[in-house]
């Protein structure tokens, strides 16, 4: 059963929604474990029952090693997001956030986006691809606006809808043009029939805008900062990780499956996008004061690093990107676990609110510092290793200037990540500040994520496995 994991996610989403109808508010605490268990079961099914290669539904739904790893990533980030959300939704917090609730709907919507992303990587024709992308994106608009009576959250949802609709329209136009040019909706058939004509370049530009929107590539990043800031913290975490992964998966589908012959020619363009994205993300992040907004620009710059793997369309880029995506997921979610915890306990989201955290909660401050250093690419953490592999791709493609830009950008990024470290470690705590409590779920999640972000850089087996399975994935 190739699509067993997807079926489990659907069943789980429906199950959560149905259960939500039948039980009373007090018992709704079981919804989060239900959703989490569902994703865990899907993960088991993915590992046990899904082969590395196979297709069904007349070749329109297929699995290959790259798709398989993307699904691992989506399930993993979904699962962790649920673990990060449940304290907030169940009200186990120090400062109650108004207008948050509706647990049944929340988890159902979350599961629906995960389902969309999983189908997205398995789609093999334009229609499925587009529909699954919409399934992955539309529920996110709802999630961003989840705090009903909060103006910022509403604004976030609204902006996201408008920009998202715009991006979807561009993308649909691009896909339509491609269909018109080739007369086929099968991705693999399109590849062979494209010719170098203006209509093709128009389609390519439209698709670039669409991909750029999902991946927050400059200049298509405008929505990110406001949406990240307005959305509830766990949703921001999900947006910055899973949604970005979906963007990458979509880029894989378009660039490698459909426009494979053209990727190498676009190397200079990709390099410029990467350089501009990381530079803008990093420089703007320096002046942010709200931690979620700050993380939005940090995530934009990370997207810049991520697409370095496309430069030159090299085979080594595929495992490098997949590995970095997993590293980024673990690292960013570790940082967000701290942010979610802090906002749950204090209701505060400014960077200077973190002052003295190393005196009151030394272990959480340590975890947060590790996460930030990993994002900045400091060895021996996994962020360093992942970036090193990506930089190596650009170097191999001959783009030494891009390596220099990226490496200098890492230094800039360290400057603003150190701002938070400074608040936590160098600034004294407020008078009378006491230790803040942490719930067991969040504590365990944080420990696991921190351990993972250290070990993934030291133990080579994860990268070696990905590399062995996907290095020969590109047909060339």
């Amino acid at each position, binding site marked *: 059963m190739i699509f067993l994991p997807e079926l489990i996610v659907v069943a789980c989403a429906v199950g959560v929604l149905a259960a939500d109808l039948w039980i009373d508010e007090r018992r709704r605490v079981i919804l989060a474990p239900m959703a989490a268990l569902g994703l865990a079961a899907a993960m088991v099914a993915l590992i046990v029952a899904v082969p590395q290669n196979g297709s069904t539904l007349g070749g329109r739904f297929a699995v290959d090693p790259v798709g398989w790893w993307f699904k691992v990533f989506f399930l993993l980030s979904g699962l962790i997001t649920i673990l990060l959300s449940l304290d907030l939704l169940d009200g186990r917090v120090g400062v109650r956030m108004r207008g948050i609730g509706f647990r049944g709907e929340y988890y159902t919507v979350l599961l629906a986006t995960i389902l969309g992303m999983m189908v997205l990587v398995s789609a093999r024709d334009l229609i499925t691809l587009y529909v699954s992308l919409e399934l992955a994106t539309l529920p996110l608009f709802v999630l961003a606006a989840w705090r009903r009576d909060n103006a910022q959250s509403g604004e976030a949802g609204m902006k996201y809808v408008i920009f998202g609709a715009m991006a979807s329209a561009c993308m649909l136009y691009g896909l339509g043009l491609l269909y018109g040019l080739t007369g086929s909706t099968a991705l693999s058939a399109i590849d062979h029939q494209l010719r170098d004509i203006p209509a093709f370049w128009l389609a390519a530009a439209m698709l670039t805008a669409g991909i750029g929107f999902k991946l927050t590539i400059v200049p298509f990043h405008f929505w990110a900062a406001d949406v990240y800031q307005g959305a509830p913290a766990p949703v921001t975490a999900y947006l910055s990780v899973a949604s970005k992964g979906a963007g990458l998966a979509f880029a894989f589908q378009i660039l490698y499956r459909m426009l494979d012959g053209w990727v190498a020619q676009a190397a200079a363009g990709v390099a410029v996008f990467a350089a501009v994205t990381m530079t803008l993300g990093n420089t703007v992040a320096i002046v942010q004061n709200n931690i979620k907004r700050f993380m939005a620009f940090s995530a934009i710059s990370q997207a810049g690093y991520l697409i370095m793997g496309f430069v030159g369309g090299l085979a080594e880029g595929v*495992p490098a990107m997949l590995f970095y995506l997993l590293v980024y997921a673990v690292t960013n979610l570790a940082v967000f676990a701290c942010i979610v915890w802090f906002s749950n306990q204090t209701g505060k989201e400014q960077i200077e609110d973190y002052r003295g955290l190393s005196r009151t909660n030394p272990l959480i401050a340590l975890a947060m510092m590790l996460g930030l*250093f990993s994002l900045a690419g*400091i*060895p*021996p953490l996994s962020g*360093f*290793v992942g970036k*090193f*592999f990506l*930089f*190596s791709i650009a*170097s*191999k493609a001959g783009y*030494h200037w891009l*390596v*220099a830009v990226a*490496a*200098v950008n*890492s*230094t800039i990024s*360290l*400057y603003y990540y*150190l701002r938070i*470290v*400074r608040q936590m*470690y*160098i600034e004294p705590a407020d008078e009378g500040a006491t230790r803040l409590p942490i719930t067991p779920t969040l504590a365990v999640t944080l420990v696991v994520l921190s351990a993972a972000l250290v070990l993934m850089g030291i133990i*080579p087996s994860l*990268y*070696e496995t990905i*590399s*062995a399975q996907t*290095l020969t994935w590109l047909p060339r």
Partner: protein
Amino acid sequence: MGLVSWLIAIPFLTTLAILAVPAGRWRWIRWIAVTGCGIHLVLTVVVTWLFWQQASADVAAMKTALLTKLYLVEQVEWFRSLGIEYFVGIDGISMVMVILTSVIIFTGVLASWYVETRTKEFFVLLLTLVTGVFGVFVSFDLFLFFMFYELAVLPMYLLIGIWGTGPKEYSAMKLTLMLLFGSAFILVGFLALYHASGMHSFNLLKLAQANFSGEFQRWVFPMIFVGFGVLGALYPLHTWSPDGHSSAPTAVSMLHAGVLMKLGGYGALRIAVYLLPEGAKDWGLFFMALTTVNILYGSFGAIMQRDLKYFTAYSSVSHCGFVLFGVAALNLMALKGAVLQMFSHGIMTGLFFGLIGMVYGRTHTRNIDEMGGIARRMPWLAVMFYIAGLASLGLPGLSGFIAESHVFLGGFFGNSWTNITVMRVLTILATMSIVVTAVYVLRGLAKVFFGPIRNSHFEHLDDAKLPERISTGVLAVVLVVAGVAPWLLINMIEGALMPIFNRLNGSIAMTGF
């Protein structure tokens, strides 16, 4: 796990041990730290002995060798698909640097005996930093090297930011960013080397067998050299150094000026010159000119300083200039001098910064003009200060003389591919700094220690306590030993430098200088 891995593992395990102790027990923590460093010192002696057992037989063979020969090698595949290995070993240069680091950290921990705020975090960060330093000196895989290199730089931010003095946050940020800016260029260079070699390996010895084209060497060499040069305080990228050193707490200044700045010279020699000899020949004169500025600028800058730490920091810029000057001069004598200077300056400046910390802890001022006559109250510290000062101005019998005379002789002899007149002029200019050094060292120390006691508060000060006496005594003894019996070091270094030198001269074996 072999002995070389233990050189890296002991500071790391000490860190873990300290992490396990509750923060309130700060007396235990410093004992754990000093025990760990003591064990490391013993291990270093053992490794040196084993190394010399094997290496002494090979020195003659190395005269014609083009490849570095390593001892006590450990090699394990790591990221196999990218050709990254855990590859550590020891050769003469790294042995000398390991001895230096081991001595400095041991004395540095003793000099930090009275750090009582956030002791646990202090020692954790200090030992993490040292783990990185040891890693750099024994790694022969570029990936591993780079990993340890950055690990050694980063803890500095918190060490200066939390325990520093003066404009500490500014200095910490400036230092961290400038050093990582340098390492960005090193990274570009390393990746270019990896891909250009076509060997699918980061192994330094394998890369040394690759044929890099002249054009390639011409642009990669300055990238890597400047990248390391930032840490080696290459003019005009040295500006982090005075601020950083003067804001840092005692042990951190010791380690940073004593050891970390040497990573710059070490990397420039070991990687830039060794792998890219043609590039080195093209750029040698340019970097000699820059480092001459370094040497003169640093020493003149030191004259003007009123703060003891700035004073020493500028003198460090000048002395680290000698290291890079020797590396850029590219003959055997000068290269030998560069390595000797790394060792000599490391010990000397470690002693200087250690002493400044001890004096400051008593007088609560570092301003030279406010002090005076304190030799009467603290004779031990005064004597030690003078030993360091005399080594710094190159008095024969102390290590500085040996190192600097090698560098100058090497620079004066010149080499076959550079305009010898220009090299000699630069060398003569650089030599003049010795006079300037004598001026500022003797004047500065006389002001601080002799004359009438200016401040009645100084009448009640006491001399060095036992941990401080051990710390400074050990360093002074090393300075004297290295000055009186320099062949102990030169023998070790020579065998390791021959391959680098031979590569510069094609395959022609050269003897003499």
